[in-house]
């Protein structure tokens, strides 16, 4: 459904745009319907830039992103099927308007002909799908709602369209522990209905909860990708191992990262092709056996 092929993004920096920084370097992966793919990386890994390029909010420098075989473009008919939700729920709503205005905007652009009552029914149904009580959220200003309610409102907004792919960029990182898991469970339900989700996060524990497949990014490069169980059950790349060892676990002591030989990665200039270590498990490391 969604396919990224050698996607590259360079930013101009410095006076007169003379310098260039490569934020995303030849990244390729795909997302199928009914599949959750986690895009995991730390700050500066380029994960959000990739999300924004898929959403047509940033132009890309090179490579191609296609949806159903057609190149992505920031147009109305594309956004009918592909939507995004971002990290900060409070910044996603215009603070001077009521929160339910996001629904009115969808109606205006995509369903102008639908009668008011029928639209109201649809909105209430979508709110029910995201486990919100319409009477508690309609007619309120964003600051009167909680972060979890706002993120659900945005999911409901996407459901009012003919949504097939959702780019979820750190959507739970500003939510409280007791509410964020419900948002993830909600994504799982939507996935069961055939929605494809690209789940972008820095948090490994959240990334592994839903995703069938995981892509680990570092400084704009894919270092390892494959089935989530394989990538985190048997990490091959030193960076993946280091990341995994740094995550604080509730029931286990903090293990020191096994001594890793990062030169293997650096020896290849931090880029280059991915090797298929075992079926469907790709890693950017030259000598797998010795890692």
């Amino acid at each position, binding site marked *: 459904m969604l396919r990224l092929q050698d996607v590259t993004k360079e930013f101009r920096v410095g006076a007169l745009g003379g310098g260039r920084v490569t934020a995303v370097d030849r990244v390729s992966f795909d997302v199928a319907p009914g599949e959750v793919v986690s895009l995991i990386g730390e700050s500066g890994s380029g994960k959000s830039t990739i999300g924004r390029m898929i959403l047509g909010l940033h132009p890309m420098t090179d490579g191609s992103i296609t949806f159903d075989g057609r190149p992505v473009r920031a147009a109305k008919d594309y956004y009918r099927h592909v939507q995004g939700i971002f990290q900060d729920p409070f910044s996603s709503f215009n603070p001077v308007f009521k929160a339910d205005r996001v629904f009115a905007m969808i109606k205006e652009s995509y369903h102008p002909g639908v009668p008011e009552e029928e639209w109201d029914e649809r909105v209430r149904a979508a709110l029910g799908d995201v486990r919100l009580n319409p009477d508690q959220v309609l007619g309120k200003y964003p600051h009167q709602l909680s972060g979890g309610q706002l993120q659900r409102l945005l999911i409901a907004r996407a459901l009012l369209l003919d949504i097939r792919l959702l780019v979820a960029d750190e959507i739970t990182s500003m939510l409280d522990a007791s509410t964020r898991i419900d948002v993830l469970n909600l994504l799982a339900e939507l996935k069961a209905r055939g929605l494809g989700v690209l789940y972008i996060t820095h948090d490994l*524990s959240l990334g592994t909860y839903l995703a069938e497949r995981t892509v680990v990014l570092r400084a704009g490069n894919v270092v390892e990708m494959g089935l989530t169980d394989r990538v*985190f059950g048997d990490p091959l790349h030193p960076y993946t191992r280091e990341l995994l060892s740094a*995550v604080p676990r509730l029931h286990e002591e903090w293990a020191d990262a096994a001594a890793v030989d990062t030169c293997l990665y650096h020896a290849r200039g931090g880029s280059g092709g991915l090797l298929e270590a075992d079926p469907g498990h790709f890693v950017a490391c030259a000598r797998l056996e010795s890692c």
Partner: protein
Amino acid sequence: MSLQVSELRVHYRTLRGEVRALDGMSFDLGDGEILGLVGESGCGKSTLGKSLIRMDGRMRHVGGQVVLDGRELPIADDRRMTGFRFREISLIPQYAMSALNPTRKIRRMVTELLKSRGVTLDAAELGRRMDQVGLPREVLDRYPIELSGGMRQRMVMVVSTLLDPSVLIADEVTSALDVSTQKAVARALLGFRDGGYVKSMIFVTHDIALTRHIADTIMVMYAGKLAEKAPADVIVKAPRHPYTRLLIDSLPEVGVRHAERRLEGIAGSPPSLLDPPAGCRFRDRCPLAGDECAEEPPAAEIAPAHHVACWRA
């Protein structure tokens, strides 16, 4: 006992009335103890941290007292607190970026800061402490903008503990950092306690998993009150307050998959602290709630060093 907080009440003034952000908190912090203070947004944990250092204009000290090493802290009196700040009690803020003046090189900033407190800089000691947190000495000749988030955070840690304060408050110091940096900063904090640079520490965070690796004791707050306080292992392995239990159960861990084990959040939301309901504040969301919960549960010590504010614990 380095810090004793009893029945502390701090309110926020807002247009619609007073928000009871801290509504009768009591706890002790022992010498050499690291206390992890966890809770969700709006539970009052940051208010507690701020109250011990500097109240902002909207905060009002309504009742209760704070005793540090046998002396009462004048928390409502900003001027008298100046004598305590930095020497006796110190804070590492969440955003180290904004704590550092961008136009000054680090060395000059540290010197000026110490001068304002009437202390001369002991360069050797500063260097030793920078080694301790793994900061190269060249950092002193750089501008804050040239440092990474983790380095800035560690620099602020070194600076705020230079006068060996009795209590250090670390307010969400790791939440804006990457996991690998987070680990380094957390370890540096432990090193400060072990090295005797600070006697004890309050580590304010929303991340229970991380707290458990640093803190000796974890205190869970809910809606302006203490819910449960116990040794870190006990909180994680055998929590007694229903809120703590549900909270711990809702945490995803690496390797937990939705398809195999579906985690559940806690339904509902915390009560408004403008006019909080009588009785237990977790009552509306609590699966165990009964009639006695209409009355407020006291924080009882059900086992040594294990305090729980629940009738059904």
